[in-house]
């Protein structure tokens, strides 16, 4: 599903990532652990095709991201990858439903898939929220900024899930949550990925979450550039 080969990425003449090989299989749930400054965000941007490596290959779903044009990578990302960020996941001027269905506006294939589950995108959004334990009707009218962090993160999962992308990349999604919520958040994410056969790449510096995952990768163990050098 995800494959990196001899990949090097530098930013302003400084080598940040040098990964000889990384392979993540379909439906795998992988925890990538790394301290801040270890190049986590850079790795995610590379996986998402926001940036391209100067050397080596990034292959996702048998597509070579490193040889694609910028616009192709953008639409590839829209079609195949869902994202969950640390916080500030939602566009403040869109309402709950608009935020969730936003990826379908950039990807026709995800819109099609979403409409297989429900008659309309709005219905699908409400269905996803219900799965995540949010009764949409009670908060539908509220501005997204009035939601609690926990609610916001669940809305973010719904957005990442809509239209069943192949991969969900979660970038420190639990760091704003307290420990009780962390566990339930991760469980929820797992359940949904399980149902939809989605590959999950979960990046965090928080070792306590490691135990939930089948596979755990220490970024420093695959990156031959040392963290101090990057900083």
């Amino acid at each position, binding site marked *: 599903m995800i494959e990196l080969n001899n990949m090097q990425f530098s930013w302003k003449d400084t080598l940040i990532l040098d990964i000889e090989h990384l392979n993540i299989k379909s439906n795998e749930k992988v925890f990538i652990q790394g301290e801040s400054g270890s190049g986590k965000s850079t790795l995610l941007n590379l996986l998402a095709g926001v940036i391209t490596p100067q050397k080596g290959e990034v292959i996702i779903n048998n597509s070579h991201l490193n040889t694609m044009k*910028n616009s192709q990578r953008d639409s590839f990302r829209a*079609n195949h990858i869902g*994202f969950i*960020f640390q916080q500030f996941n939602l566009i403040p*001027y869109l309402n709950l439903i*608009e935020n969730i*269905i936003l990826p379908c506006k950039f990807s026709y294939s995800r819109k099609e898939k979403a409409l297989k589950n429900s008659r309309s995108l709005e219905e699908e959004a409400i269905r996803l929220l219900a799965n995540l334990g949010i009764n949409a009707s009670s908060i539908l009218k509220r501005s997204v900024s009035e939601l609690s962090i926990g609610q916001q993160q669940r809305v973010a999962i719904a957005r990442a899930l809509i239209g069943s992308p192949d991969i969900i990349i979660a970038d420190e999604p639990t760091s704003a949550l307290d420990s009780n919520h962390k566990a339930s958040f991760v469980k929820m994410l797992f359940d949904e990925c399980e149902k939809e056969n989605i590959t999950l790449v979960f990046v965090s510096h928080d070792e306590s979450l490691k135990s939930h995952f089948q596979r755990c990768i220490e970024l420093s163990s695959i990156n031959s550039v040392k963290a101090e050098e990057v900083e």
Partner: protein
Amino acid sequence: MSMFTLALKSIQSRKATFLLTFISIAISVMLLLGVQIIKKEANSGFLQPVSGTDLIIGPKSSQIELLLYSVFHIGTPNTLMEYKSYERIQASKNVKWAIPISLGDSHKGYKVVSTNENFFKHYSFANDKKVEFTEGKAFEDMFHVVLGYEVARKLNYKLGDNIVLSHGDAEVSFVHHDELPFKVSGILKPTHTPIDKTLIVTLHAMEAIHDDSPNHFMHRPIKKKSQQHDVHDEDEEHHDESHDKEHGEHEEHHGEEHHGHNEDEHSKNSEKIYKENLSHKVAKKLKKLPTKISAVYVGVESKNAIFGIQRKINNNASEPLSAIIPALAVQDLWEFFEFVQVTLNIISGLVVFIGLLGMLSLILMGVQNRRKEMAILRSIGATPFDIGKLIVGEAAIVCAVSIGLGVVFLYVALFVLSQPLYDTYGFYLQIQPLSLQELAILALIECSAILISFVPAYRIYKQSLIDGMNTHI
């Protein structure tokens, strides 16, 4: 959801922030269009009353002066021209019609124009429209008066009403021609020219009310008995005629007494109903034409003749006269105001520019604060180009909303101002939909806004290329 809808929602959520930008651009749009419209309306307002007149002839003066007093009743002529010159002009070759105009009196602040029947026959305005009557007709009697639409409406006059003219054109006059009131014979339809605010009387009547020779009217000291007698003799229909004759010797005394009585009656009724009095009869008998008039409107047989006649009049040896081509005089007047208009255009253009700069700075400030938002958009597949489009879309929306608001402001202002403008300056502001030229101005403003937004759009484009999906900013 296109980037445009996103932009719309983004602006919607920041209405309050953009409020001042909306208002400042809207005001500038209102100013810019307002200047255009006032210019256009003023131009047509000045041209309409003279559109059917080929030449205006008056005593030697500057063409703008002659135009202003003879057509717009602004200012007063220093000198007058001979009535004989009018007769000569009318009789001359290539002249189709000539209308004598005499000014100077007023009624409750409205100007009185005295002329002859040619006015109703030949005068035209606003592309060959002739003056028409809402009720009544042109004068058939020497002391008939035709009222402009505004005069009748504002002063609430009806046909048959009695009107006393005042000497001079001041709002409040102390000299009234109350011995010779007029009867309203007709009320004109609105023309949206200065005629709406004028009273039109005959030249004979004008001469009569100004005739200073002491023996014409009975209320004045009567010196020559014989003349007084003449008047009565001629006045066959007078109801006191037989009575006067019977009383022979007491004629003069009685006559005076009678007149006094008549005047009392007249002043009682003068408020409303016109009644012919003795003075009218005397004046009608005399029916004197004025020796001097203010100006002559001329229509020619063929347009080619205009310059020939103009040259002839300007070189006229018997009396110093000026002949002007009113359309050219309006142009001249207009050039005189050109710099005011240019200045206003520059000022409103600058206000537009400042408004747009305000918008630019607001959007630029947003660029920095919205890096996380852009990262999210990137993560779900928006290209950096899409994000640039979002910013351009926002600017386009802000400007379009402001323009819409400005147009609303403009029409509200026009509606509010049109009546006072008309009442105070006689300037008729026709409220019309925006012309192509004005729409082009609006399009230009919108394009400038879009162009100006390329600055923040490019910045955010670069920014989002660098930031990618990095939300840890």
